[in-house]
């Protein structure tokens, strides 16, 4: 038997409120399945399980539970049920027709009172519940993000960062002429929904560079650096109404630009309406922030603990540049790094910035 516990969805999280189970006792779960919704100060997060097995017991809904509290007990492969399963005791009785109809209506049939044979929920019970829902009682909606709570969470995380992490900062200017032209050509003959934003190039360039400087991709834990198992940059997303989250873009260095674009679109959308996954909250190995067209010219980030670095991109601006002994006006981008001095030194940080710069000079290889 294994325990599925309340995950820490960020360094700043102490408790979470279990608001919905998406599985029932007896359900078979696989690694990566979304099984529950937990409300945090970053909104409702879809929590994934990282066990293969069969759900045996679930914690009740509605309680604030500390990180590490047992949410479910899972019978893993090879284990036999603790007791002989009693018919119907492990699973709500819902007739197949009712189950199908409930699925169509997006209704949780298992929670309804059953009027059928052996107390089963029948088609009529589902239709009644659907009619009642229609009549007024709205389906439980995901709670949005509470800006005040989020502000508190950011305050806690950033205060801890500035208190604990000895930051050092590096900056350099990247010539974006090659990247801009390449992007323009790429987008020219594509419909709007297939076009790339410059942000995707920046993210991919960073991910590619991190392969050469893995010492900045990971976490500082228990007094030592632990390398990330993959390159999962957290992409900083500003939320309407204030606040930000930086969910992971998993294995960014292995994704194509088009895939990354899709991922970013999806992440931004889910970050704003709620529905980020727990792995996206816990997995980032570094943060990347890009201020975009309307942002400041440069940014000096604050590291999100226990990560050890944050890469920042400012607004691209045309500047006079020395090129081949002459002066040309070319698009320039301020690239910055804030890194944890307990883990790395400026020399290494410089290597990362140089690698990002190189990658952006060669956009067709991204």
């Amino acid at each position: 038997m294994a325990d599925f516990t309340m995950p820490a969805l960020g360094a700043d999280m102490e408790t979470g409120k279990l608001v919905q189970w998406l599985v029932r006792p007896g359900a078979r779960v696989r690694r990566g399945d979304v099984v529950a919704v937990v409300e945090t100060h970053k909104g409702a997060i879809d929590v994934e399980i990282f066990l293969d097995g069969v759900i045996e017991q679930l914690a009740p809904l509605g309680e604030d539970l500390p990180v590490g509290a047992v949410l479910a007990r899972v019978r893993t492969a090879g284990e036999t049920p603790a007791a002989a399963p009693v018919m119907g005791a492990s699973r709500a009785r819902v007739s197949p027709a009712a189950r199908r109809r409930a699925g169509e209506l997006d209704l949780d049939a298992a929670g309804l009172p059953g009027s059928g044979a052996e107390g089963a929920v029948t088609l009529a019970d589902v239709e009644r519940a659907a009619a009642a829902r229609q009549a007024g009682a709205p389906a439980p909606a995901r709670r949005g993000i509470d800006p005040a709570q989020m502000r508190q969470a950011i305050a806690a995380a950033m205060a801890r960062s500035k208190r604990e992490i000895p930051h050092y900062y590096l900056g350099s200017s990247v010539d974006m002429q090659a990247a801009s032209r390449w992007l323009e050509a790429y987008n020219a003959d594509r419909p709007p929904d297939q076009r790339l934003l410059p942000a995707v190039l920046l993210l991919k360039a960073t991910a590619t560079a991190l392969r050469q400087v893995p010492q900045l991709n990971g976490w500082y834990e228990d007094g030592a650096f632990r390398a990330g198992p993959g390159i999962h940059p957290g992409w900083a997303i500003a939320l309407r109404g204030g606040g930000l989250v930086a969910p992971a873009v998993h294995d960014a260095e292995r994704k194509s630009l088009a895939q990354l674009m899709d991922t970013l679109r999806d992440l931004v959308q889910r970050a704003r309406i709620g529905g980020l996954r727990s792995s996206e909250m816990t997995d980032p190995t570094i943060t990347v922030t890009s201020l975009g067209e309307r942002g400041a010219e440069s940014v000096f980030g604050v590291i999100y603990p226990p990560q050890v670095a944050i890469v920042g991109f400012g607004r691209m601006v045309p500047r006079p540049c020395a090129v081949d002994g002459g002066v040309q006006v070319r698009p320039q981008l301020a690239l910055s790094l804030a890194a944890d001095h307990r883990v790395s030194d400026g020399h290494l940080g410089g290597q990362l910035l140089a690698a990002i710069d190189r990658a952006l000079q060669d956009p067709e290889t991204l």
Partner: protein
Amino acid sequence: MNARPTSISYREACKQAIRDALRADPRCFVMGEDVGKYGGCYAVTKGLLEEFGPLRIRDTPLAENGFVGAGIGAALAGLRPIVEIMTCNFSLLALDQIMNNAATISHMSGGQFAVPLVIRMATGAGRQLAAQHSHSLEGWYAHIPGLKVLAPGTVEDARHMLAAALADPNPVLIFEHVVLYNAESPLDPAVTAVDIEHAKLRRPGRDVSLITYGNSLPKCLGAANALAAEGIEAEVVDLRVLRPLDMGMIVTSVAHTRRVVIVDEGWKSGSISAEISAHLAEHALYELDAPVRRICGREVPVPYAAHMEEAALPQVPGIVAAARALVRPG
């Protein structure tokens, strides 16, 4: 012919069907134990010997495997035999001929030889004939590819199924229920033929499907009447043909009512009711709003004592209770 419906018995309907066949086709003859002088153990062929003579109404020795084999040979040679076996219990003595020859010859000859044989036999319990004359073995025969298996549950089917069976190039087994022989019902003169492919809706309803055949059909119709008095509308489907089963009709009915009770006088395990249940699980699971229920014969040799025999068979109160529990539990 009288244009008004006349009431006749199921036994008489069987006899009229045989008489019609003998008159219509000179290749047709009847063969079996006591079918001639004695008039048949259930008196179905009574009077036919006098009418058609010993060449066409032939008494046989008590040797089922022998005379069924003779019937197969006659069919292969171009005749249209109607073989009567006293009860399906005795048909087991002829199982080798039925299964290994009648059912296989068309297949094994690559379709060169057809076996247009009809075997009629009595089936079922309810007449205190005890454990060697009362069983319902039609479900076993319905297991065998190459056979068609009919179970007339109405006077009309008893009257008209034989002609369709004789017209079929395959061996056809007709199971006549012993309790039904005395059942009487008006015969619609407008109906001159029936198919032997489809089940038939005997009573429409919206709440629960009663799927049945043979002598359980009148019981289900009785149960439907009793249920109607409680406001439960039961639909009654008469299978009529046990092989091939008309699963389309069954699924359609269950999709309509979403609840089903299968009523089968045969033993429950490995029965026609089991086959239908499995098919519903395979093809209509998401139509079901309640578990499939079966009312079947108790798994004992059919007892002789009247009260015990009654207790061993599906009866109206049990069917009503099962249907009610699905529609209106608690």
